[in-house]
């Protein structure tokens, strides 16, 4: 809501610079407060933000210039984690969207499988980690399987929901013009379902991060989660905090990237 009396240009300026400045200001103030509280306390459990920042720097960005200053740990922790996360999420996205759109347009298939899928979605995915562990052993395949199984359901069910919501007039128009099924799904159903599809993808992305961490905490020889587990066993609290902050930053960046894509795509499609 714009405040009455504020002239147009100043509103735009506020949106462009004032609001972000205020938000960053609050964030900095919080960090400063944290620093001021933790510095005198000197608790091993609660390191100061500066210590955490320094640890993150020495962990990941103090490498040789030949490797763009990235340390060895970037290649053993962050890269494996991210590749598993993205691969698992992408597989789940492709499978989930395709299956969801097809199921959503087929009343019969949904009648048979809907309850089954809703149940599958209700299973807390970490519970299946032991099963994937014996099936695939510790390592890449088990982690990707865990992520895919954990995150495919929200995408699938949301896509089906979106596909079902295509209005009857559009369906009948397409049938009257004898539009082939493939073309119809791609050019009518998908665009109509996109807002829901993106909602599912967003939930899945957050879940994928959770599943990545879980699978690494349980069974992995590398990755961010594994590094955090080692830190836990060695009582390196600053290292643990650094891991938490790193995961937060990654989660924020991934979500921001997805939001940017979503905005682009939805704007290109007049609803």
């Amino acid at each position, binding site marked *: 809501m*714009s405040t*009455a*009396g*504020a*002239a*147009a240009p100043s509103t735009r300026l506020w949106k462009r610079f004032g609001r972000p400045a205020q938000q960053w200001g609050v964030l900095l103030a919080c960090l400063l407060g944290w620093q001021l509280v933790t510095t005198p306390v000197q608790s091993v459990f609660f390191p100061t933000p500066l210590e955490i920042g320094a640890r993150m720097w020495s962990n990941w960005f103090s490498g040789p210039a030949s490797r763009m200053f990235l340390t060895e740990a970037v290649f053993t922790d962050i890269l494996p984690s991210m590749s598993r996360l993205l691969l698992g999420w992408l597989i789940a996205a492709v499978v989930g969207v395709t299956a969801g759109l097809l199921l959503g347009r087929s009343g019969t298939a949904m009648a048979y499988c809907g309850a089954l899928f809703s149940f599958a979605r209700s299973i807390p995915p970490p519970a299946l980690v032991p099963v994937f562990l014996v099936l695939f052993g510790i390592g890449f395949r088990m982690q990707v399987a865990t992520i895919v199984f954990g995150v495919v359901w929200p995408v699938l069910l949301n896509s089906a929901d979106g596909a079902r919501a295509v209005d009857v007039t559009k369906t009948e128009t397409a049938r009257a013009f004898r539009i082939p099924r493939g073309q119809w799904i791609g050019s009518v159903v998908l665009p109509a379902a996109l807002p829901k599809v993106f909602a599912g993808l967003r939930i899945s992305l957050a879940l994928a991060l959770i599943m990545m961490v879980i699978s690494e905490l349980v069974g992995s020889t590398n990755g961010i989660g594994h590094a955090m587990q080692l830190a836990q066993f060695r009582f390196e609290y600053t290292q643990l905090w650094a891991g938490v902050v790193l995961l937060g930053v990654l989660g924020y960046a991934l979500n921001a990237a997805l939001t940017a894509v979503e905005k682009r795509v939805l704007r290109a499609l007049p609803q």
Partner: protein
Amino acid sequence: MGTMLDVTGLGHTYDGRQAHTAMSDLTFTVASGELTCIVGPSGCGKSTLLRCIARLVEPSRGQVHLHGDLVREVPEDLAVVFQDYSRSLFPWMSVRGNIEFPLRSRGLSKAERRERATETLGWVGLADAAAKYPWQLSGGMQQRVAIARALACRPALLLMDEPFASVDAQTRFDLEDLLLRVRKEQDTTVLLVTHDIDESVYLGDRVLVLSQAPAEIVADLPVELGDDRDQITTRESETFVHLRGEIARLLRDTPIPDSTSSQAAHRG
């Protein structure tokens, strides 16, 4: 008959990317017990006018007096019926709940509220629908609930913003007759805004004709149709036909002041 509403020099300008003056300087009065219709082209600032009178919008200029008191905030004894019944009735309250809701803050006891609701539902012919929810009713019935809710407050002034614009033609006739009947029975003062010339003539004791935005009063016409009006015979009468022609001509011939700003007129 005393003066119920006294509007002097009322004007409003919306700030924003393009400042838009919805009305510049309106002055008129409404007498007690009178049903005044304000008719004007779409987007001329009629809704803004009602909102300023009800103080839902703070007017940029001018003053409003209700039974002699200067209006500074939403007046206690005022009620509004909006065009969009589906957005003004509270969907989570039953019909009775919707009608009783404003009465609570007016200090009525539970028994009194219940009695009022039953009574006003009787006026609008919905005695049987008290326990239903708005979404279980047709559009016309929902708007009758909105009217009943307004009347239950026993308002000194009832403001109606295009109240019958969202219902079908037959329902519209029924609701118009209902309004005429109820306001005669209850002796309510009504200020009704519409873009429909026929409706303004059929309902009003008096019609104020507004120009394009910024709205100005171009005519103040008494309607000599008497108290007993009928959807068929009244609309055929010479007075009716003559008056509607006169208003139509006024609306057609008023110069359009600044065409760009009137096109971008802010409605609502």
